[in-house]
C-alpha cells in the first residue's frame, strides 16, 4: 500500500514536470533518418606519400568525417561499414545497386582520391539506390593538408542534394574557452572547425574576453575585451592577428555584431547607467546612435537584409525583445509570453528570431517569427543562453552552464546544439569549458 502511494506521488511529481516541458513542433522533426552507405574513398595506388600525412588512410578518414557529420544531423543514418559488400574502387565505378539495397541503404557515397605533385585530387559520387542512378558527381583539387575540409565540403554537397538546403559542415565556430574557478575564470577566444577539430586559441587569457562574432566573410571577429580593464568592443583579423578597438567611446561598449554586409558594427554603449544601441561604420568610422531611451537597450542583431534590427530592452520594466527599422524608427515589442526574453538573434534565412527565455527560474532557447507570432521553446535547462544560427538557419548552437554546489563545485560550461525542430540536441565537444559560440558562414562558395 505504501509503495503504491510513493509511486503515485512520484508519478504526480513527474507528470507535473512533463507538463512544464517545452512545446515542440514535431511535424518537421525527422524520426526516421535516411539510411546511407558511405564507402571509404578509394586511394589511387599512384598516390605519392606526404610527410605527416598517411595518404593510404586518407580515404578512410575522409569517409569517417562525412559519416560523423551526417550522423550529427539526425537526418541520416550512416550504416556500419562491416556490412559493405563492394570494394571502394569498384563501387565508385559502378555500384551493384541490388547488393547495396540488400543492406537497406537508400543512398550511397563513393569516391576516389589521388595525391600527386603535392596536390590532393578528390572525386566523389552520390548514388540513389532506389532509382539505381548517380545523382551527384563532383571533382576538385586542393592542398593535401586541407583533407578535413574536403570531407566537410563533400558532406555539404551531399546534404544539399538530399535535403534541398545548403549545408553547414564546412564552417567554424568561434567561442570563449574557459578555465579555472568560477570566481576567477580565465577566458580566451578560441576557434575550431564545426566538428570540434583544429582548435586554436586566439588570445592568451590575460584579459577577460566575451561574445565573439564573425563577419560575413569569416575573416573578422568582433568581441568584447577588458584590455587594460577598459571593457570595449574590439575587432580582430583572424589571419593577421591584428586587433583594434572599435570607435572612441568614453565608456563601456559591448554586445557587438556585424551588419550583414560587414560594413558596420552594431553594439551597446553604456554611459551614466544607460545603455543605448550605436553603429559604427568600419570604413568611415562614422558613429550613429540608433536608440535613445532611458532603459537598457542591448543585444542588437540585424535582419539578413539589413533593414531591421531586433534587440533587447527593459523599457517595459523587464527584459523583452523589440524590433525596429535599422534607422531606429518604428520600435515594436514582439515578445509577450510569461517571463523574460534576451539575446535575440535573427536567422540568416530571415524567417525566425532565436532567443533566450527565462521563466520561473528556468532557461529556454526558443524561436519566434519577427512579428512575435509562433513562439516555440526548443530546450529547457538550469542555465543556457546566447543562441547562434547555423548558416542555413536549421540548427542553433548555444552554451549551457550547470548548477554548482558550494565553492562552485560541479560547475561546467559547454556548447550544445539543437535543430529548430526541437530535435537532435547534442553536446559539442570542446577541449576546455566553453561559452558564447558564434557560427561562421560557409567557408567555401
Amino acid at each position, binding site marked *: *500500500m505504501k509503495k503504491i*502511494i510513493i509511486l503515485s506521488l512520484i508519478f504526480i511529481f513527474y507528470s507535473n514536470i512533463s507538463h512544464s516541458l517545452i512545446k515542440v513542433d514535431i511535424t518537421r522533426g525527422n524520426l526516421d533518418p535516411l539510411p546511407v552507405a558511405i564507402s571509404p574513398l578509394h586511394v589511387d595506388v599512384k598516390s605519392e606519400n606526404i610527410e605527416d600525412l598517411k595518404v593510404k588512410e586518407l580515404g578512410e578518414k575522409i569517409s569517417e568525417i562525412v559519416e560523423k557529420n551526417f550522423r550529427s544531423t539526425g537526418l541520416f543514418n550512416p550504416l556500419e561499414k562491416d556490412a559493405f559488400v563492394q570494394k571502394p574502387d569498384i563501387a565508385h565505378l559502378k555500384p551493384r545497386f541490388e547488393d547495396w539495397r540488400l543492406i537497406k541503404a537508400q543512398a550511397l557515397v563513393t569516391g576516389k582520391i589521388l595525391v600527386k605533385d603535392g596536390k590532393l585530387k578528390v572525386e566523389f559520387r552520390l548514388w540513389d539506390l532506389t532509382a539505381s542512378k548517380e545523382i551527384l558527381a563532383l571533382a576538385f583539387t586542393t592542398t593535401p593538408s586541407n583533407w578535413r575540409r574536403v570531407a566537410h565540403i563533400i558532406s555539404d554537397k551531399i546534404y544539399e542534394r538530399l535535403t534541398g538546403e545548403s549545408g553547414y559542415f564546412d564552417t567554424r565556430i568561434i567561442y570563449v574557452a574557459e578555465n579555472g*574557478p*568560477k*570566481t*576567477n*575564470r580565465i577566458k580566451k577566444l578560441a576557434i575550431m572547425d564545426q566538428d570540434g577539430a583544429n582548435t586554436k586559441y586566439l588570445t592568451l587569457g590575460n584579459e*577577460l574576453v*566575451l*561574445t565573439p562574432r564573425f563577419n560575413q566573410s569569416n575573416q573578422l571577429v568582433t568581441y*568584447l575585451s577588458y584590455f587594460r*580593464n577598459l*571593457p570595449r568592443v574590439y575587432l580582430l583579423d583572424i589571419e593577421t592577428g591584428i586587433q583594434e578597438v572599435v570607435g572612441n567611446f568614453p565608456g*563601456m561598449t*559591448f*554586445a557587438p555584431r556585424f551588419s550583414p554586409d560587414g560594413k558596420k558594427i552594431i553594439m*551597446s554603449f*553604456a554611459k*551614466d*547607467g*544607460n*545603455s543605448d544601441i550605436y553603429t559604427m561604420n568600419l570604413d568611415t568610422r562614422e558613429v550613429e546612435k540608433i536608440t535613445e531611451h532611458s532603459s*537598457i537597450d*542591448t*543585444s542588437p542583431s540585424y535582419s539578413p537584409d539589413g533593414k531591421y534590427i531586433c534587440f*533587447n530592452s*527593459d523599457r517595459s520594466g*523587464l*527584459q523583452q525583445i523589440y524590433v525596429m527599422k535599422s534607422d531606429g524608427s518604428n520600435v515594436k515589442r514582439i515578445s509577450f509570453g510569461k517571463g*523574460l526574453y*534576451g*539575446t535575440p538573434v535573427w536567422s540568416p534565412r530571415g524567417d525566425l528570431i532565436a532567443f*533566450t527565455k*527565462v521563466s520561473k*527560474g528556468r532557461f529556454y532557447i526558443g524561436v519566434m517569427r519577427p512579428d512575435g507570432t509562433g513562439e516555440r521553446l526548443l530546450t529547457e535547462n*538550469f*542555465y543556457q*543562453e*546566447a543562441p547562434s544560427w547555423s548558416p542555413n538557419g536549421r540548427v542553433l548552437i548555444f552554451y549551457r*552552464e550547470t*548548477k*554548482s*554546489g*558550494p*565553492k*562552485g563545485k560541479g*560547475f561546467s560550461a559547454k556548447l550544445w546544439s539543437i535543430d529548430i525542430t526541437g530535435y537532435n540536441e547534442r553536446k559539442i565537444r570542446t577541449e576546455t569549458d566553453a*561559452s*558564447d559560440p558564434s557560427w561562421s558562414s560557409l567557408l567555401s562558395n
Partner: protein
Amino acid sequence: MKFNTNLKNIILILAASLLLSACAAQKKSGLSGDVYTGTETIEYLASGVPDRVFFATNKTNLTTAARETLRKQATYLRKNKELNVTIEGHADERGTREYNLALGERRANSAKDYLMTYGISGKRISVISYGKEKPVNSASNGLAWSQNRRSVTVKVK
C-alpha cells in the same frame, strides 16, 4: 480511511517543519526579500566603512541599507580628498550575459550618483561593470546570488 488521516497529518507536519526551517534559513543567511543583508563577503575601505552594497534581482535602485553604507563611504571620501575610487557593478549568474553587463553598469552608477549627491566629485569616481563575470560566491543558490548582486567601491592605487 484512517490511513489517509494519518498520512494527511504527516504531510501537514512535514510542510510545517519545512516552512519553519525555511524561515530559519532566511534569518540566518541574512536576506531581506532577496537582498543580502549579511556581512559575510564585505570588506572595509576603513574601519566602519563597508566597501559594497547589495541589490534585488533585476533591480538597480538602492535599498535603505545601501544608502547608509554609501553615506559612510561619502564621509570617508570627503575626509580623504586625495583618494579616487572605482565602483564595480556586478550581477548574479541568472541573467543573459549582455543584459547583465548593462545591469552592472547601472548598479555601479546608482552608487556613484548617490555618492555625488553627498558632495563627492564625479571626477573621483570611475565605474566598471563586470556583469556576471566575477562572482564572490560561486555556489548556485539564492544566498550566493544575493551576495553577487552588488556594487563594490575600490580604492584606486
